[in-house]
C-alpha cells in the first residue's frame, strides 16, 4: 500500500472550507489531490481574498482571505479542499495602494479575473446581452485539462511549404448558406464540418483570428443607419489569454469549449492541416484610464501596463493601453501562455498582432535586443512553432525587414501587399515586383533571413477583400458609424471602371481576371502565401475595409458564392495544387541568380516581351524562368517554370525562352482565357502550340511548365 504524502492534507479552516498553503507553480487554478491549488502574483498587493461563486450566481457564496503564511515571495498560493470545481466560478479581491501618479490602482471593491484562468464564464453564448449590473462579468472557472489526443502532435510542416488561410471562427460558418447544422454554425465544431472543403481547396494551414476569451459587448453601440447593435466582432481585445472563447463553441454553455477546440485541432491534424492562432499581447480589454477593471489593473497595474511618468497609460496599440511585454513578469506570462497553447492544445504556430510593441521597453523605447522576442525565439517548448509577426504598431514603429528575428520569426510582409496591389494597376516598377516575387531578398537576405520569413499576402482581415480591391477605388465604411473616417485610405485598389457592383459583363470579367492575376502571382512567389477566407469565392464586404464591428452578412461568409464564382474557386484550387506539386516554388534559401548545378540555366532568370531581356524601366511587363534542376537549392529535380505577367492595357507578344532539348512547354494557367481553360489540374496541362512565344491579353498572367 503506498504511503500517503505528509503534505497534502488541510492545515487551516475558514468557515466550512479546508485550506493549506499551496504551491506557487503553476500560476492559476490547478487540480491537485483532494482539491484545487490557486496561485496568483502581485508585487504590491497588501492582501488577497479568494472569492467563490456558485456558477451563474449573482452574489458570491464565500470570500476566503489568504493568510500571510500563504504568501511565498509575491505569490499568493492556497489549496482549497473538496471544491465542486465544475460548478463554481472564482475571482480575487486585492487591496493595496491607490495612487494614480505612481501607477497603483488597487480597489478592494472590485472582483478580479485570474490572468491565468483556463476557462472563463460570463459570455457563454455569443451575443446574449449580459446583465450590466453583474458584480463580476468575466468569471474564472476551473478546467478539466485532460483530453484523449491519441497520437496527435503538431504537424511541423516546413515553413516554406505552408499555404495559409486566414479566417474568423464565427464568419466562416455562421451563415445558413454554409449548410452547417444550425447548432454548430459559427463555432469550432462548425469548422470541423467544413474540413472537407478546406482539403479540397488545398490549404494546409488555417490562421484563426483571436479565439481567446474577449468581450463582444465591448464598446457595443447601435448602427446609426440600421439600429442593429455593433459589436466587438473581430476580438482584438483580450480578456483572458489562456481561455478559449466560450461563445465560439457550441458547447460553450456547458463549459466544454476546451474539449471542442481540442477536437477541432485533432481533426485538422488528421487531415494534414496546421492551426495558427492570432495572439494579441500588445494590449488588453481594460482600455485606458476610463476603462473597466477586469483583471490586471486591480492586480498589479504598474507591472502589466506601460505607464507614463505621470501615471497615464501609453497607447502604442491605438486602443487605450499597452501591455508591458518586456517586464520580466509579463514576459513570463506571455511565455507561459504560448507554451500552454502549444502543449495543451497542440497549436502549430502563432501570429502576433502589432508585434512591434513586443520590442519596446517599459517606457516605450524600441529595444535592439528585446528580452521577450529573444525568449520566444529560443524557448524549448515553442521551438518548432511558427512565429509570425505583424511587424508594425500604431505608434509609428514599422519594422518590416528589421524585426528582431533571432533566425526564427517570420513577418507579414506589408510591402508585398502594397507592391502587388500597385502592380495590378500598373503603378509600380517591375524591379520592385521582382524583389517581392523572389521572397523579398532586398529586405531579408542581407541579414541572413530566408524566403519563408516573408508571409506574402495581398488581402487579409484588415482592408479590402480581394474582390473589393478590384471593385472599389475608395473605402465605404459608413456602416461602421464613424462617418467613413475609420479604416486606411491607402488601399492601392482599382475598381476596373466602375465603383461597386455592376451588370457590365466586361468589367466583371476584368475583375475576375485581376483576382486570378493576383492569386497566380501569389502562388508562384517564393516565401509563404496567405489568402483571406472567402477570396476563393469572390467574397465582398461591399467596399468596407474595416468590418471589425459587424456581426452580420458583411462578415459572414456567403457560401452561395461558391456556385456563383465557381470559376474563381477552381482557379484557386488549381494554383494551390500547382504550388504543392512544384518544390521549385518553395525554396528554403534565396536565389543566387546563377547556374550552380551545371544545367545551363541560372536558378532564376528574368525576361520581358523578349526572352533573356528584361526591360526594368517599364511598369507593366515582366517574366521569369525557374530552372527545375535548382529546386530546393539543387537537392530535388523539378520542372522548369516560366511566368509571364502583362499588366499593360493592350495585348502583348511574349517571346518564350527555350527549354533544354526533349522538354516542351505546357500551359498550366492563362488568366486571359475563359474558365475552365484558365487553369489546369497539375499533370493534365496541355501542350503549348507555339513553343517560341504566345500572346498575353491585356492584364493577364501566364504560367508555363516544362
Amino acid at each position, binding site marked *: 500500500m503506498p504511503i500517503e504524502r505528509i503534505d497534502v492534507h488541510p492545515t487551516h479552516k475558514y468557515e466550512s472550507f479546508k485550506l493549506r498553503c499551496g504551491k506557487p507553480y503553476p500560476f492559476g487554478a490547478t487540480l491537485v489531490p483532494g482539491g484545487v491549488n490557486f496561485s496568483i502574483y502581485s508585487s504590491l498587493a497588501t492582501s488577497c481574498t479568494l472569492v467563490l461563486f456558485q456558477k451563474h450566481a449573482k452574489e458570491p457564496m464565500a470570500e476566503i482571505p489568504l493568510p500571510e503564511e500563504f504568501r511565498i515571495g509575491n505569490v499568493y498560493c492556497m489549496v482549497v479542499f473538496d471544491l465542486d470545481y465544475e460548478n463554481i466560478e472564482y475571482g480575487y479581491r486585492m487591496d493595496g495602494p491607490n495612487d494614480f501618479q505612481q501607477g497603483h490602482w488597487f480597489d478592494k471593491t472590485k472582483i478580479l479575473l485570474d490572468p491565468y484562468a483556463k476557462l472563463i464564464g460570463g459570455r457563454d453564448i455569443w451575443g446574449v446581452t449580459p446583465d450590466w449590473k453583474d458584480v463580476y462579468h468575466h468569471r474564472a472557472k476551473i478546467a478539466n485539462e485532460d483530453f*484523449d489526443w491519441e497520437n496527435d502532435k503538431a504537424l511541423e510542416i516546413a515553413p516554406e511549404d505552408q499555404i495559409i488561410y486566414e479566417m474568423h471562427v464565427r464568419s466562416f460558418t455562421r451563415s445558413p448558406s454554409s449548410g452547417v447544422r444550425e447548432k454548430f454554425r459559427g463555432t469550432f465544431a462548425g469548422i*470541423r464540418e467544413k474540413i472537407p472543403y478546406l482539403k479540397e481547396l488545398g490549404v494546409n494551414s488555417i490562421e484563426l483570428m483571436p479565439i481567446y476569451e474577449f468581450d463582444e459587448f465591448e464598446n457595443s453601440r447601435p448602427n446609426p443607419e440600421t439600429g442593429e447593435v455593433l459589436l466587438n466582432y473581430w476580438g482584438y481585445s483580450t480578456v483572458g489569454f489562456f481561455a478559449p472563447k466560450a461563445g465560439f463553441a457550441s458547447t460553450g454553455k456547458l463549459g*466544454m469549449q476546451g*474539449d471542442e477546440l481540442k477536437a477541432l485541432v485533432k481533426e485538422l491534424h488528421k487531415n494534414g492541416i496546421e492551426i495558427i492562432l492570432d495572439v494579441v499581447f500588445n494590449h488588453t480589454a481594460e482600455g485606458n484610464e476610463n476603462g473597466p477593471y477586469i483583471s490586471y489593473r486591480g492586480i498589479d497595474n504598474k507591472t502589466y501596463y506601460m505607464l507614463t511618468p505621470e501615471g497615464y497609460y501609453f497607447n502604442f496599440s491605438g486602443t487605450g493601453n499597452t501591455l508591458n511585454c518586456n517586464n520580466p513578469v509579463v514576459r513570463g506570462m506571455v511565455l507561459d501562455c504560448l507554451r500552454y497553447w502549444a502543449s495543451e492544445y497542440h497549436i502549430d504556430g502563432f501570429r502576433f498582432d502589432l508585434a512591434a510593441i513586443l520590442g519596446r521597453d517599459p517606457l516605450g523605447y524600441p529595444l535592439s535586443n528585446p528580452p521577450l522576442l529573444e525568449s520566444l525565439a529560443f524557448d524549448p517548448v515553442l521551438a518548432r512553432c511558427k512565429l509570425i509577426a505583424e511587424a508594425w504598431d500604431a505608434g509609428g514603429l514599422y519594422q518590416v525587414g528589421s524585426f528582431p528575428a533571432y533566425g526564427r520569426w517570420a513577418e507579414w510582409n506589408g510591402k508585398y501587399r502594397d507592391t502587388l496591389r500597385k502592380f495590378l494597376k500598373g503603378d509600380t516598377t517591375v524591379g520592385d515586383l521582382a524583389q517581392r516575387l523572389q521572397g523579398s531578398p532586398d529586405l531579408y537576405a542581407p541579414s541572413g533571413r530566408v524566403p519563408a520569413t516573408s508571409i506574402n499576402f495581398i488581402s487579409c482581415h484588415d482592408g479590402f477583400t480581394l474582390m473589393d480591391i478590384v471593385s472599389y477605388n475608395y473605402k465605404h465604411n459608413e456602416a461602421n458609424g464613424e462617418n467613413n473616417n475609420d479604416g486606411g485610405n491607402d488601399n492601392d485598389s482599382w475598381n476596373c471602371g466602375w465603383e461597386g457592383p455592376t451588370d457590365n459583363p466586361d468589367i466583371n470579367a476584368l475583375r475576375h481576371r485581376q483576382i486570378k492575376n493576383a492569386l497566380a502571382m501569389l502562388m508562384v512567389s517564393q516565401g509563404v502565401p496567405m489568402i483571406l477566407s472567402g477570396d476563393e469565392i469572390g467574397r465582398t464586404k461591399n467596399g468596407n475595409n474595416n468590418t471589425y464591428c459587424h456581426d452580420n452578412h458583411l462578415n459572414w461568409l456567403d457560401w452561395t458564392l461558391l456556385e456563383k464564382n465557381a470559376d474563381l474557386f477552381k482557379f484557386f484550387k488549381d494554383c494551390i495544387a500547382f504550388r504543392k506539386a512544384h518544390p521549385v516554388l518553395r525554396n528554403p534559401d534565396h536565389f543566387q541568380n546563377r547556374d550552380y548545378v551545371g544545367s545551363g540555366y541560372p536558378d532564376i532568370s528574368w525576361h520581358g516581351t523578349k526572352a533573356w531581356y528584361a526591360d526594368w524601366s517599364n511598369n507593366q511587363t515582366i517574366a521569369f524562368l525557374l530552372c527545375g534542376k535548382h529546386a530546393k537549392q539543387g537537392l530535388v529535380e523539378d520542372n522548369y517554370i516560366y511566368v509571364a505577367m502583362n499588366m499593360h492595357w493592350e495585348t502583348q507578344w511574349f517571346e518564350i525562352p527555350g527549354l533544354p532539348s526533349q522538354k516542351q512547354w505546357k500551359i498550366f494557367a492563362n488568366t486571359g482565357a475563359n474558365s475552365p481553360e484558365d487553369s489546369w489540374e497539375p499533370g493534365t496541362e496541355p501542350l503549348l502550340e507555339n513553343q517560341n512565344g504566345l500572346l498575353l491579353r491585356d492584364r493577364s498572367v501566364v504560367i508555363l511548365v516544362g
Partner: protein
Amino acid sequence: MAFNCELKTINAIATISVSGELDRKAAPDFQAKVEEASKQDITALVIDMKELEYMASAGLRVLIFAKQHMPNVTVYVVGAQELVADTIEKTGFNESIVMLSKYDAAIIEKN
C-alpha cells in the same frame, strides 16, 4: 433528477443503462459499472442512454476512459437524447464509438 445505472451482461455483450443526470457527483457510479464490465470477457459494451437527460464533461470522460481500457471492445451508445448526442459529437468523441439511435441487434450482435 437522480442518476441511476445498471449493468447486465448477456452473451459477451455488456449493457449499461443510464438514466437521470450524469454529472460529476454521479460519474464515479458510472465509472464503477464500466470497470465491472471491463473485467468480464465481452466483445461489446452498450451504453443505453434513452433515459439520460444530461451528461456533463465528467460523464464524457468516463466514456473515454471506457474506450481506453477496453481497446478490443466496441463501445456503442444507443438512443442518446439530442443534447447528449450533440455534446458527444461536438467534442469529437463520436469518432471513437458507434452511435445508434436504437438497439440494433443486427449490428451489435453480429459477433
